């Protein structure tokens, strides 16, 4: 696993990918920090939470090549024909992407130091936001890894990952629309409107339960919830396992 981790992490810096990701992140976080700083009211929690909106751009960039590139270049043969375990390959790549994320995030630590130096507050809520940020990154990176494992085209992997993250970010809105649509549909089929509305709202509620942003929104006030973190972690584990199965299945394919 360490061999794969090392190779993948360093390969980010052998190509423009690592630099581009870091540059985008530095620009965005720097811009957010500066705009707060210049008004005199620094709120690091809100900076970090705003940065989550850019997962949808940064995660596809850093995950799209992880497996797709190997498949295209034929280097995936190494994972199947050497004694290395396929799951440790998946984990190695996952950790490499997480490590790149940590490097990018060091910008925010610099902002913390600056804030502290200017007698600003870096409270428990900020650390809560940092924890949430990383757990969400785990989740979205594992989604990106699955996207990269199912195709040998980086572009398709990036688009697939982009759409998945977009859907999760908009899940609150989507669930409302979904609930309304179900209500309308049931109403058309002649169900009485009260019942239809309650079914619709129950479904919307169920769907919005999946919203990780809603689950973790109290962290920034310093209210931590283990179950929310477990939710993110579970999603990450499920997607990593799916990626592993997809790669393993290739060997058995009859197509």
């Amino acid at each position, binding site marked *: 696993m360490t061999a794969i981790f090392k190779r993948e992490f360093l390969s980010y810096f052998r190509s423009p990918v690592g630099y581009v990701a870091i540059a985008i992140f530095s620009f965005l976080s720097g811009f957010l920090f500066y705009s707060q700083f210049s008004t005199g009211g620094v709120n690091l929690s809100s900076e970090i939470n705003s940065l989550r909106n850019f997962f949808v751009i940064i995660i596809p960039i850093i995950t799209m090549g992880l497996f797709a590139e190997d498949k295209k270049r*034929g280097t995936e043969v190494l994972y199947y*024909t050497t004694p290395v375990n396929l799951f440790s390959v998946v984990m190695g790549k996952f950790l490499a992407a997480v490590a790149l994320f940590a490097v990018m995030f060091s910008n925010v630590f610099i902002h913390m130091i600056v804030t502290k130096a200017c007698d600003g507050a870096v409270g428990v809520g900020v650390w809560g936001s940092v924890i949430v940020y990383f757990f969400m990154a785990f989740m979205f990176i594992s989604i990106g890894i699955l996207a990269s494992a199912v195709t040998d085209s980086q572009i398709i992997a990036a688009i697939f990952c982009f759409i998945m993250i977009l859907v999760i970010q908009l899940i609150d809105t989507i669930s409302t629309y979904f609930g309304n649509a179900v209500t309308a549909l049931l109403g058309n089929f002649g169900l009485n409107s009260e019942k239809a509305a309650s079914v619709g709202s129950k479904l919307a509620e169920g769907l919005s339960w999946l919203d990780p942003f809603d689950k973790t929104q109290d962290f920034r006030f310093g209210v931590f919830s283990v179950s929310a973190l477990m939710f993110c972690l579970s999603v990450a584990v499920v997607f990593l396992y799916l990626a592993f199965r997809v790669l393993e299945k290739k060997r058995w394919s009859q*197509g």
Partner: protein
Amino acid sequence: MIEINNLVKHYGDKKAVNGISFTVNDDEVLGFLGPNGAGKSTTMNIITGYLSSTSGTVKVNGHDILEEPELAKRDIGYLPELPPLYLDMTVLEYLNFICDVKGVKKSERKEHLAKVISMVKITDVADRLIGNLSKGYKQRVGIAQAIVGDPKILILDEPTVGLDPNQILEIRKLIKTLAKSHSVIISSHILSEIQAVADRVVIINKGKVAAIDTISDLSKRLSGSSKLLLSFKGPVKEVCSKIHSVPGVVNVSQRISDGDIHEIELTIDNNSASDVRASIFFAMAKSGWPILEFRSLDPSLEEIFLSITSKG
């Protein structure tokens, strides 16, 4: 030692491999010969664990490739048709990575890599990016990757394809060196390629084994008749009839004519007592028709299959 037993691989309705069985002994070079699409690469991919078989077993030194994959894979070094190279790494970085993946101990690594690098002669390019190397060097790095970790068995899928004649000779020489201490399976669709390095040949066609034989037995089986090409200056019709009358010549057919230079193809009965070539030379010389070129024609794979299958 590799035992391959009744291997079958389906791709949808298509049977890429259909009941292949053979054994590779220790320290033997086994040539794996067949036309494009015969199932060579598929078979090799199954042996190395890259693909699974639909049915049948592969045992590497007694370990089943599916049941004890880690033990079996430890003994195999594989060079696929497309060498699995990371173009963004230097040769040394890449081989270090392969050492990591194959679990070569840190303490032995330096010595081991030095040995591998000098064996495949890539010392000069060890610090260069793989992406910047020529095709011949890339192929060598691919072979280096296969022999890292000292596997007992090497599986090389068309190792000389796309190389220039000099590079082909060098790779052949390298394979011969490796064969002293390894079992080698080498695939190709060119007979002479296999003849140059292999002890034994497995010929496959349409997913089935057409023949398993030693090189010398195979050439005996093929030697019933052979073909010669003769290019000369002179009257075609007379030359043809003259040569046809030479004992041992079974058939004469005209190939190309360019002005008064002609090319004909002769089918020779190899069981004839005298050397037909000498008789032809003297017959031509006596009539004053100069020979411009005179050489034997290698049988094509199709002819080999025909001759093997027709003679059972």
